[in-house]
């Protein structure tokens, strides 16, 4: 009995030791195999940049189909539903109760509630009714469809140029000619034209289906950039033939992120660049055309609405001058395993500082964020001063009207309002709080403040101007 027990112990111990060793060796084998497979996968990724599983043609509109060949890019594109705040931009998801008219359950925050002065600036215009913070590309179509602005004005089909995937729609409407299709859809009422489109901006709006090369598909940009290049001395500019690859990485964005207006009864989308891209060049063009967006309800001034002039503002900044395109910061390269792709989750670079900024600026993320916010804080402070100045001028004009001031006197002040308001709105509507060109934004705001106060002075002096008529400032002396 006792002997047996003695025999037992070393045996059990040996068995345990063997079992333990087997277990450890097995676990090591598992770990090594996992590593081996991981290395193998990375080698495969580097070997096969993409698999062609579907045939794409020049008529493949649905991004879902393109996504089968380019799953990583498509995945990023789908992520533009994301709503995140930055200090001065981004957007906030605000829940709302869906109604029959507007089935959206999530929207962005109302800018009119954040800053009621905007209602005074836009008095008598649809923007005073409803204006929310812009959200990601994924929302462009539904946000345009359901904004309350649709209820107070009759929009033309032109609006869709930038709120939907238009290339195939233009081709169909123009029997293969996108310019003819563009003209045809512009003249339709919005809800009529809306039937021709299915998706928000999609792959085909920027990419050639066969080569994946970038290309411009919007006639309005082709015409606009031709005019802008002519100012620089380049004749007969054909963007798809003459632009460099790096220019294209900004031009495809410039198809929409620009100041524009609808020209004439045919509502032709036009980018006002025949005199150049600066704010005073654009204003000069509108003066030549005798164009106003609307008559201000409180002052009777013919005023203009600036619309997201990111392309124009970026052109005045140091990044553009250094050859940095929109895509470099808003769609920076990212690594997916052994692959390198453009991040198609288009968003604020402030949410993606490592990839967007640290390629060139080798400083800690906190430092770069502080630089961005310092620059924006200064612009935002001036923007608020300009807003106060403009509201003060509008108040004075309103009072002068009520007091029965002469038309000549009012006209002088109204001209100042038009000049001040367009400049302020140019920075206000531009989606970077000045970051795309901080000095230019500050110059424009300083002029806006000056014009607003000059308008008040003119009223105080009974129509006598403090200085000569508003001049396009900032140019060479």
């Amino acid at each position, binding site marked *: 009995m006792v002997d047996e027990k003695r025999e037992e112990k070393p045996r059990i111990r*040996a068995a345990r030791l063997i079992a333990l060793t*087997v277990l450890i*060796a097995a676990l*090591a084998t598992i770990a*090594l195999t996992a590593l081996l497979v991981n290395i193998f996968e990375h080698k495969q990724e580097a070997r096969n940049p993409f698999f062609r599983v579907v045939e794409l043609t020049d008529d493949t509109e649905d991004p879902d189909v393109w996504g089968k060949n380019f799953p990583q890019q498509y995945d990023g594109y789908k992520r533009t539903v994301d709503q995140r705040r930055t200090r001065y931009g981004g957007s906030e998801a605000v829940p709302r109760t869906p109604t029959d008219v507007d089935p959206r359950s999530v929207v962005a925050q109302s800018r009119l509630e954040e800053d009621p002065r905007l209602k005074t600036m836009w008095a008598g215009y649809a923007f005073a009714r409803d204006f929310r913070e812009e959200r990601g590309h994924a929302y462009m179509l539904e946000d345009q469809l359901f904004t309350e602005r649709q209820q107070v004005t009759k929009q033309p089909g032109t609006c869709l140029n930038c709120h939907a995937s238009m290339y195939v729609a233009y081709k169909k409407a123009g029997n293969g000619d996108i310019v003819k299709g563009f003209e045809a859809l512009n003249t339709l009422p919005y809800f009529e034209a809306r039937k021709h489109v299915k998706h928000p901006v999609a792959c085909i709006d920027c990419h050639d289906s066969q080569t994946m090369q970038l290309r411009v598909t919007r006639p309005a940009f082709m015409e606009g950039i031709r005019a802008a290049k002519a100012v620089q001395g380049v004749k007969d500019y054909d963007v798809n033939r003459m632009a460099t690859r790096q220019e294209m990485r900004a031009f495809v964005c410039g198809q929409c992120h620009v100041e524009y207006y609808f020209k004439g009864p045919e509502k032709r989308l036009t980018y006002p660049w025949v005199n150049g891209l600066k704010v005073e060049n654009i204003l000069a063009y509108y003066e030549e055309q005798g164009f106003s967006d609307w008559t201000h309800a409180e002052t009777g001034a013919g005023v203009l609405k600036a619309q997201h002039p990111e392309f124009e503002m970026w052109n005045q900044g140091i990044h553009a001058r250094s050859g940095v395109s929109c895509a470099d910061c808003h769609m920076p390269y990212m690594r997916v395993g052994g692959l*390198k792709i453009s991040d198609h989750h288009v968003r604020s670079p402030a949410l993606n500082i490592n*990839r967007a900024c640290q*390629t060139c600026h*080798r400083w800690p993320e906190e430092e770069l964020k502080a630089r961005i916010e310092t620059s924006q804080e200064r612009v935002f402070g001036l923007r608020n001063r300009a807003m106060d100045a403009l509201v003060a001028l509008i108040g004075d004009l309103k009072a002068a009207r009520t007091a029965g001031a002469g038309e000549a006197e009012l006209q002088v002040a109204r001209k100042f309002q038009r000049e001040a308001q367009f400049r302020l709105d140019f920075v206000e509507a531009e989606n970077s709080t000045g970051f795309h060109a901080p000095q230019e934004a500050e110059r424009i705001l300083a002029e806006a403040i000056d014009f607003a106060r000059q308008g008040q002075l003119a009223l105080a002096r009974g129509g006598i101007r403090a200085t000569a008529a508003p001049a396009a400032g900032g140019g060479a002396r």
Partner: protein
Amino acid sequence: MNLRATSAVALGLVIGAAAGVGAYTFIYAQGASYLTNDPNACVNCHVMREQYDGWVKSSHRSVAVCNDCHTPPGRVAKYVTKAQNGFWHSFAFTTGRFPDEILITSRNHGVTERACRKCHESITLEIDGPHAAKTPRDELACVRCHRSVGHLH
């Protein structure tokens, strides 16, 4: 006896399998190349491709390879640094947990700075002088101005 022999064979098989898979993984991943000075070893895994491409076109391409600037002098110190970076690089690439724009760690930055000074001592001694920096921000770093000598990115 029989049981013992069977256990020993089983044990041998299991350990042998682990060793075999290990050896094969090492060869498949070109493990031996990491013990050399060959810059090609550094682009085995695609992450350092930009750095390598930059170095090929840089002013230092014919006087220095990766290890000349990124490992300290002395055989032991060199292989300790190699082992440390090698482990963390493999770990990051395997798990995918690393930023796309890789930034040098402060330890490795120090190694590189000392490497500059090793070859260019006659100049750097004159520049450094007696005043030490108080914060990393004030530190006089060769590569802050001479960023492109090895590779731009």
